[in-house]
C-alpha cells in the first residue's frame, strides 16, 4: 500500500499490532457524499458529481474526522495490550521490570515508524506530558500516600529532596562545566557551553523521578521506610527542580547573575513549595466540603475528587508553583474527609479509576520515551554523555552518604549502610527530566540536542541497569521486605494507646514535643474541621471505631465471598472462634444487662467448688453413661482445666444470649433438644432487671443450649435421670452445687437447676428457693 499525499491534511501511518496500515486521507472534497466508494482508497475528484445511476454511498470512508481520537485510542490500546502481554509471557516479568520492556516496545514502534519513512510524531510533547500524562500518576500517589510514615520521616525526606537535589544539581553542573572547559579542545562544541547552561542541565538531570521510582519499587516490595523515603523524595524534589529550572533558564537568557537574583531565587523556592501546598490544601478542603452534600447524588462523587485535584494542579501551574506538591497536598488533605462522606462504591470507583489511569499513563510514558528516543534529534557526544552518567552516579552516592551521616544524628531509627545503598541506588531518572529538556528553547540553548541525548542515556542507564539489578541486589543484601500481614486491631488499639500515653508523658514532663502538637492538631481537627467537612453522624466517629467498622466490613465481604462459612474469618487462620472467648457478640444494642463484677478470687472459689462437685459427679457417672464411655475428655485428667474453662465460658456467655431465648419455639417433648429449648425459652429464668448495673449478679447455668458440649452434660443428667431415678443423692447434688455458687439476690438459678434436673416435667418455679443460702458473704 502506498501512501498518497493529500492536500490539507497529512497522512499519518497508524499502527496496529505490528502491521503497517497506511490510510490515505481524502481531501476536503470528500464531503460530497454522492461519490460512490467501493472500499478501495482513492482520491476523489470533482468530476464525480455528475455520475448517473450511481448508488447511494452505502459504505463511506471518512478518516479525517476521527483521526485524533482514533490515534489516541490506538496508542492507549497498544499500551494496555503490551501490559497484558508481559504478564502472559512466563518469567519475563520476574527478570525484567515492566518499565524496561515498555521502553523497548516504544523503541520498536518508533523504529517501525521510521522504517516506513515517516517522521515520528513528537509524542512526548511537553504539554501532553505535563498536563495529561503526569497528573494521574501523582494523584494516585498522593491520594494513597501513607500519611503516618510520611509524616514521621518528613524531616529526612525533606533533607534528601531539597539539599540532596541541590547538591546533585550543582555538583553535576559544575563538574560538567569544568570538564567541558578543561577536558576538550577549545574549538569543540563542548567548550561553548556556559556555566549556567551546565547548571541548568544539572538541575534537570538531578531530580529523582517519581514515575520511574514507582514503576521499579512497586515490583520489589521493599520495606515501608525505604519506600517512603525514596518515593517521598521523588515527589518533594519537584519544587526544587521547578525553581532551579526557571532560575537558570532566566539567567541563561539574561546572561548574568547578581546576588540579588540569587537571593530572590531562594525566596522563590519557598514560595513555589509552600504556595503549591497551600493551593493543594485549599482545593482539598473544597473537595471535602463538597463531598459532604453528595449523599443524594452518589454517582458523581468520584468526579469531584478528580476534578478538584486536577484543578489544583492546573491552578498551581498557572502561577509557576509546584503542581506536583499541590496535587499531593490536595489528595492527602481531602482523603480522610471524603472517605468518611462517600459511599463504599464511590470509594472503590475512585480507587480503581486512579489505579487504572495511573497505570495507563505510566505505560504510555515509557512507550513514548522509547518512541522519542528514535525520533528525537540526537547529537551524540561521547565525552559529554559518559561524564554525565558517571557524575550522576557519583553525586548521588556522595550525596546520600553525606546526608545520612548528618540525618542519623537526629533520627531515632538510624539508617544503616544497606538502607543508604538502596536509597542511592533507587535514585532513578525518568520522563520528567526528558520533558524538561524537551522544553528548552533552541535559540537560547544551541546545545539542546546534546543535552537531550545525554538525558536519554542517563534515563536508559538508570531504568535498565539499575531497574533490572535492584531486585537481585535487594535479595542479595537481604534488605527487609514489606510486611504482608494486614494491620490488626490490636496494633491499632495500641497505636492509639501509645499516642495518648506519650502525649501524657510529654505533658507530665512539661515538654512540648511533637506528640503534644500532634495531639493538639487532632483535637482541633476533631472539634472544628471534622464537623465542617464530614456529613452527619460520621463526624463524631473516633478513628478506632472507624477502623473497626472497616475491618468488620472487610470480614463480612470475605465471609460472603468464601461461600458463607460458619466460622467467623479471623486475621490469622486458626480454629479459635469467639466461642473460646465468649459467645457470639450480639450486635444489637442490648438493654441494660447484668454484668458480672466478680473479682478474680471469688471466681476462683466458684470454679474450685464447681470443679470438685462436678468431678465427684463425674466419677460416679462415668460407668453409667454411655456418652462418657465413648468420648470422655474428663478421663484424661483434663477435667480440671476443662471444667474451669467451661464454667467461665458459660458464666460469660449466658448473659449475652438472654434476649434471643425469648423467641425460641417449643420443641417436641422428651428430647434433649426439648430440654435445652425449654430452658432457653423460659422467660422467667432470664428476667432482666433494669437497674441491674448496680447489683452485681451472676447466673450460673450448668449447661446452656448454645455450647455443643452441653449435650454431654445434659445427656448425662438426662440419662442419669432416667436410669438412676432412685438415687436421690445424684439428683440433689447438681442443684445444690450451683446454688451454693449463687449470689444471694438471684433466685432464678435455683429454678434453672430444678428445671434442668427434671428436664421436662415442670418448668415452673420450685419451692426449693429457701435453700438458697448466701454462699458468698
Amino acid at each position, binding site marked *: 500500500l502506498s501512501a498518497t499525499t493529500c492536500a490539507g491534511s497529512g497522512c499519518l501511518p497508524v499502527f496496529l499490532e505490528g502491521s503497517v496500515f497506511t490510510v490515505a486521507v481524502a481531501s476536503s472534497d470528500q464531503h460530497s457524499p454522492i461519490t460512490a466508494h467501493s472500499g478501495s482508497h482513492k482520491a476523489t475528484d470533482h468530476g464525480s458529481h455528475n455520475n448517473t445511476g450511481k448508488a447511494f454511498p452505502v459504505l463511506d470512508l471518512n478518516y479525517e474526522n476521527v483521526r485524533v481520537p482514533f490515534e489516541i485510542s490506538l496508542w492507549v490500546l497498544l499500551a494496555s495490550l503490551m501490559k497484558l502481554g508481559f504478564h502472559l509471557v512466563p518469567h519475563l516479568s520476574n527478570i525484567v521490570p515492566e518499565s524496561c520492556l515498555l521502553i523497548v516496545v516504544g523503541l520498536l514502534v518508533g523504529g517501525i515508524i521510521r522504517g516506513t519513512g515517516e517522521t515520528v510524531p513528537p509524542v512526548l510533547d511537553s504539554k501532553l506530558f505535563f498536563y495529561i500524562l503526569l497528573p494521574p500518576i501523582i494523584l494516585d500517589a498522593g491520594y494513597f500516600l501513607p500519611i503516618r510514615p510520611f509524616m514521621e520521616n518528613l524531616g529526612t525526606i525533606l533533607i534528601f529532596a531539597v539539599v540532596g537535589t541541590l547538591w546533585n544539581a550543582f555538583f553535576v553542573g559544575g563538574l560538567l562545566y569544568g570538564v567541558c572547559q578543561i577536558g576538550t579542545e577549545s574549538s569543540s562544541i563542548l567548550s561553548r557551553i556556559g556555566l549556567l547552561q551546565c547548571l541548568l542541565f544539572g538541575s534537570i538531570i538531578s531530580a529523582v523521578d517519581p514515575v520511574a521510582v514507582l514503576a521499579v519499587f512497586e515490583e520489589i516490595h521493599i520495606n515501608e521506610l525505604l519506600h517512603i523515603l525514596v518515593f517521598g523524595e521523588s515527589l518533594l524534589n519537584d519544587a526544587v527542580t521547578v525553581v532551579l529550572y526557571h532560575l537558570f533558564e532566566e539567567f541563561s537568557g539574561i546572561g548574568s547573575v547578581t546576588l540579588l537574583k540569587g537571593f530572590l531565587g531562594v525566596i522563590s523556592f519557598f514560595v513555589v513549595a509552600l504556595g503549591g501546598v497551600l493551593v493543594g490544601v485549599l482545593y482539598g478542603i473544597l473537595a471535602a466540603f463538597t463531598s459532604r452534600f453528595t449523599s443524594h447524588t452518589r454517582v458523581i462523587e468520584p468526579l469531584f475528587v478528580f476534578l478538584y485535584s486536577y484543578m489544583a494542579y492546573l491552578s498551581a501551574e498557572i502561577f509557576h508553583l509546584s503542581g506536583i506538591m499541590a496535587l499531593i497536598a490536595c489528595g492527602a488533605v481531602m482523603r480522610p474527609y471524603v472517605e468518611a462522606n462517600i459511599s463504599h462504591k464511590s470509594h472503590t470507583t475512585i480507587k480503581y479509576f486512579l489505579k487504572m489511569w495511573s497505570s495507563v499513563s505510566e505505560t504510555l510514558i515509557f512507550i513514548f520515551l522509547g518512541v522519542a528516543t528514535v525520533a528525537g534529534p540526537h547529537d551524540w557526544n561521547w565525552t559529554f554523555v559518559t561524564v554525565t552518567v558517571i557524575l550522576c552516579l557519583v553525586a548521588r552516592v556522595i550525596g546520600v552518604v553525606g546526608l545520612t551521616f548528618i540525618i542519623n544524628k537526629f533520627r*531515632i531509627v538510624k539508617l544503616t549502610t544497606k538502607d543508604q545503598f538502596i536509597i542511592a541506588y533507587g535514585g532513578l531518572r525518568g520522563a520528567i527530566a526528558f520533558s524538561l529538556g524537551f522544553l528548552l528553547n533552541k535559540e537560547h540553548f544551541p546545545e539542546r540536542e546534546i543535552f537531550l541525548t545525554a538525558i536519554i542515556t542517563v534515563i536508559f542507564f538508570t531504568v535498565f541497569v539499575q531497574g533490572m539489578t535492584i531486585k537481585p541486589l535487594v535479595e542479595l543484601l537481604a534488605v527487609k521486605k514489606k510486611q504482608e500481614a494486614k494491620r490488626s486491631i490490636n496494633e491499632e488499639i495500641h497505636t492509639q494507646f501509645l499516642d*495518648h500515653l506519650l502525649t*501524657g508523658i510529654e505533658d507530665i*514532663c*512539661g515538654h512540648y514535643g511533637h506528640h503534644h502538637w500532634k495531639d493538639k492538631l487532632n483535637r482541633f481537627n476533631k472539634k472544628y474541621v471534622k464537623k465542617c467537612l464530614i456529613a452527619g453522624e460520621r463526624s*463524631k466517629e473516633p478513628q*478506632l471505631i472507624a477502623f473497626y467498622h472497616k475491618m468488620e466490613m472487610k470480614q463480612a465481604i470475605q465471609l460472603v465471598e468464601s461461600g458463607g462459612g460458619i466460622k467467623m474469618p479471623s486475621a490469622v487462620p486458626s480454629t479459635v472462634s469467639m466461642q473460646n472467648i465468649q459467645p457470639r457478640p450480639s*450486635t444489637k444494642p442490648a438493654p441494660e444487662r447484668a454484668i458480672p463484677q466478680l473479682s478474680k478470687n471469688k471466681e476462683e472459689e466458684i470454679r474450685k467448688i464447681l470443679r470438685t462437685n462436678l468431678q465427684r459427679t463425674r466419677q460416679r457417672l462415668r460407668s453409667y453413661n454411655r456418652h462418657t464411655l465413648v468420648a470422655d475428655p474428663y478421663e484424661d485428667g483434663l477435667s480440671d482445666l476443662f471444667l474451669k474453662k467451661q464454667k467461665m465460658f458459660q458464666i460469660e456467655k449466658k448473659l449475652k444470649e438472654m434476649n434471643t431465648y425469648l423467641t425460641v419455639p417449643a420443641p417436641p417433648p422428651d428430647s434433649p433438644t426439648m430440654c435445652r429449648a425449654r430452658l432457653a425459652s423460659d422467660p422467667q429464668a432470664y428476667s432482666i432487671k433494669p437497674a441491674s448495673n448496680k447489683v452485681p449478679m451472676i447466673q450460673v447455668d450448668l449447661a446452656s443450649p448454645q*455450647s455443643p*458440649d452441653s449435650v454431654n452434660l445434659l445427656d448425662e443428667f438426662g440419662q442419669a435421670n432416667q436410669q438412676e431415678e432412685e438415687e436421690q443423692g445424684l439428683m440433689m447434688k447438681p442443684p445444690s452445687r450451683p446454688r451454693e455458687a449463687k449470689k444471694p439476690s438471684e433466685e432464678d438459678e435455683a429454678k434453672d437447676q430444678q428445671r434442668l434436673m427434671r428436664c421436662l416435667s415442670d418448668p415452673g418455679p420450685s419451692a426449693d428457693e429457701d435453700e438458697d443460702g448466701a454462699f458468698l458473704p
Partner: protein
Amino acid sequence: MVSPVCSKQIGVLHKRFKQLSHNEETLRRDHFNEIDDLAFNPIRAQIIEAFFDRRNFHQNGEGKVQEIGFEEFVVVMSHFRPPSAHMTEEQRGKTRREKLRFLFNMHDTDNDGIITLEEYRHVVEELLSRSGTLEKETAKCIADAAMLEVASISVGHMEPDEFYEGITFEHFLKLLERFEIESRMIIRFLNMDTTTLCK
C-alpha cells in the same frame, strides 16, 4: 533493672519534679491532676496510676503507693528512654521487654499477670471515652475482636469448648512483636544528648 538516665536529663527532670510537687519532697496523685494539659487525655487515669504502681519501680514490686519520691519518678520516666545507637540484639530485646512490661502493667489493673477480657474492654472503653459518643457496645465488640485475635495468634488451635483465660505477658510479647516498640515508645526529650551517653 531499667536503663540509666543521663545526669543532664536528671537535672531537667528534677526541676520539673519540683515544679509539679510545689517544692515538696514527694508527688501525690492530686499533683498530677493539676496538670491542665492532661485533662484532655482519655487514658489519663491509667497514666497517673502507672506512676504509683510499684511494679514499675523495680522487678518484683507489687501494689500501689500513695506518693512517690524523685527516684521513682525518674525510674518511671526511664521507661521512655530511646535505644542507644549501638545496641546488641540482646539489649534491644531487653529494652523491648521492659517497655512492653510497662504497657502490660498499665492494662493489667488487678495485678494477676493476665489481661482478662474485662480489663481489655476497660482499656478500649477508656480510649474511646473522650471521643464524644459513648459507644459501649462497639467498644465491647472491638475488645472482643481484639481478644479473639490474640487468642488466634497465641494459641492457634482451640477446641470449641476450651476457654481462653486472658493475655499473659508472653502472649502480649508475641502480639506486639512487630510493633517495634523500642523505637516508638520514646520521648525525645530524654534523648537530648545521644553523643554523650552515660554508663
